[in-house]
């Protein structure tokens, strides 16, 4: 439905620079997730796309057209906010219809679109209610419905799931993925939760301190991170980082994911003592104090149990280890 191009976007608030020289291409129908720690500028970037914030430099192009000078309402976008931001004094139906009425859409079209969105999100029984009479999950569905009826070129989601509890978050995540297939819409989604990023995106943009660290498909970022930041940010539990010099390597740092760190009772590359064990059912995380290498995490997908303080051996899978130089760049 719509593509997005960002060219050299920078943004400063006074002397503080929050975004620096952002270039990005989002393809028609793509699902792009901006992910990064809090304060990395991902929400500001989304607000610049929406037109709620003006970039200090650079261009925003929607379907190849420069929209810098267009008001948010004229950009053919829709946005779903973290706090839902429903109009408290309007019913669910009017909440969804307001934008269309404002654009002087014919009444019949408004009704048809609201009905269609309500069906898609199972909001039919709630149409006459006000936001105060809805639960958190229902409110978020209304907020999504309000975006859907606008049939925008771009859907923007600003951390839409962070106010929901864990179970509802999983449900809504699935809902958004289904919606996306049904609407075949271009979506941009901001989150600090890497699980959401991995499960929803076909393109992840990892931001840190106002800059893009890497852009790629979820599994690409997981398998082939460009630097230490991305390696550490994507994947849970976090990747282990070992001092390269201590292992006799040329590289400054060796990174190895917990699932690629083999744990053995008999032999291995270096030894340590079990300091904590987390049983998650299908998998077990074992924290090992490995002397000079520090506290390392190993992940096993069996039900083998280890005792606290038990002596174990660790071996990084040589095929999956990642090497980084002193600046944190990946050595290939």
């Amino acid at each position, binding site marked *: 439905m719509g593509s997005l191009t960002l060219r050299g976007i920078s943004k400063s608030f006074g002397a503080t620079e929050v975004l620096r020289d952002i270039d990005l291409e989002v393809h028609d129908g793509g699902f792009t997730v901006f992910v990064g720690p809090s304060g990395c500028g991902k929400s500001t970037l989304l*607000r610049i796309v*929406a037109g*709620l914030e003006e970039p200090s430099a650079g261009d925003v192009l929607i379907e190849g057209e420069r929209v810098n000078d267009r*008001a*948010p*309402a*004229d950009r053919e*976008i*829709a*946005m779903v*906010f*973290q*706090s*839902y*931001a*429903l*109009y*408290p*004094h309007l019913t669910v139906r009017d909440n969804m219809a*307001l*934008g269309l009425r*404002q*654009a002087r859409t014919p009444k019949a079209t408004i009704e048809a679109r609201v009905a269609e969105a309500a069906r898609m999100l199972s909001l039919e029984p709630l149409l006459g209610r*006000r*936001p*105060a*009479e*809805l639960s*958190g999950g229902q*409110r978020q569905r209304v907020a999504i419905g*309000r975006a859907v009826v*606008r049939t925008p070129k771009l859907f923007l989601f*600003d951390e839409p799931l962070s*106010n929901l509890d864990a179970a509802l978050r999983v449900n809504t995540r699935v809902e958004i993925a289904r919606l996306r297939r049904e609407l075949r819409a271009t979506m941009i989604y901001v989150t600090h939760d890497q699980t959401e990023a991995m499960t929803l995106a076909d393109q992840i943009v990892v931001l840190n301190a106002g800059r893009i660290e890497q852009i790629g498909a979820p599994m690409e970022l997981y398998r082939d991170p460009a630097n230490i930041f991305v390696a550490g940010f994507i994947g849970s539990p976090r990747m282990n980082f070992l001092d390269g010099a201590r292992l006799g390597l040329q590289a400054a740092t060796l990174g190895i994911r917990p699932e690629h760190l083999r744990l053995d009772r008999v032999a291995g590359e270096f030894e340590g003592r079990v300091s904590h064990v987390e049983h998650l059912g299908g998998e077990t995380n074992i924290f090992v104090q490995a002397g000079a290498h520090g506290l390392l995490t190993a992940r096993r997908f069996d039900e083998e149990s280890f005792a606290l303080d038990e002596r174990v051996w660790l071996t990084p899978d040589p095929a999956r280890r990642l090497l980084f130089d002193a600046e944190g760049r990946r050595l290939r």
Partner: protein
Amino acid sequence: MARRGRLRAFGAHAALLTYTAIALFPVFVIVINAFKSRKAIFGAPLAPPTPETFDLAGFRAVLTQGDFVLYFQNSLIVTLVSLALVLLFGAMSAFALSEYRFRGNTLLGLYLALGIMIPIRLGTVAILELMVATHLVDTRTALILVYTAQGLPLSIFILAEFMRQISDDLKNAGRIDGLSEYAIFFRLVLPLTRPAMATVAVFTMIPIWNDLWFPLILAPSEATKTVTLGAQVFIGQFVTNWNAVLAALSLAILPVLILYLIFSRQLIRGITSGAVK
């Protein structure tokens, strides 16, 4: 635990009741004495009216001497129009101060709040000169302008503080839905600030209604007299018709009481809950 809670509730109620009694006592004295004969007012000022002392002489005087219907009308017009202007302009400037980033924002806010600390009466002479120069003396417009100026600082201060708490997301959602800044102000922000508006309305209304100073100086003519000024005709240098003064004051309580009841209903906050998480 429950006993301590009850004890605490009792203590709180005792304190509140004491305060209520103290606050209402002068009003009570005015109202009971309005219904008594002159002799009874001086003989036993605290006694309620009895069949022997009951007398409506004061109310008769109020209705026959001076045009009190007109005075009430003047007071109501001046109070309501000033109130409307204070709320409208106060809310608009509060919105600008809380919503937009511009150079000198904080300074402008402080400047506008200065009026809370400096009483407008200090400027009486200059205001009178201004009104004379603009031929506004003895008009209700003069009073309305002065009272609007008097009420704005506090209303801007309270409303700006309140509007800062309204979620940015809500306003941004409105912008994406194509609402103009005016529509965002009138249709999203104003309904949410209703409790604060009611507070401001009450705080603004009462000093205006009760004011004697500016009506006396700016609009003392018969046609523009307000109730408080009208009641003064019964206070003479040598003789004061206390029955009439008390009756006029008792009547003057009623309109402002009705307005208060209307605004206090708006103080119910319910509507904002659930708007945003």
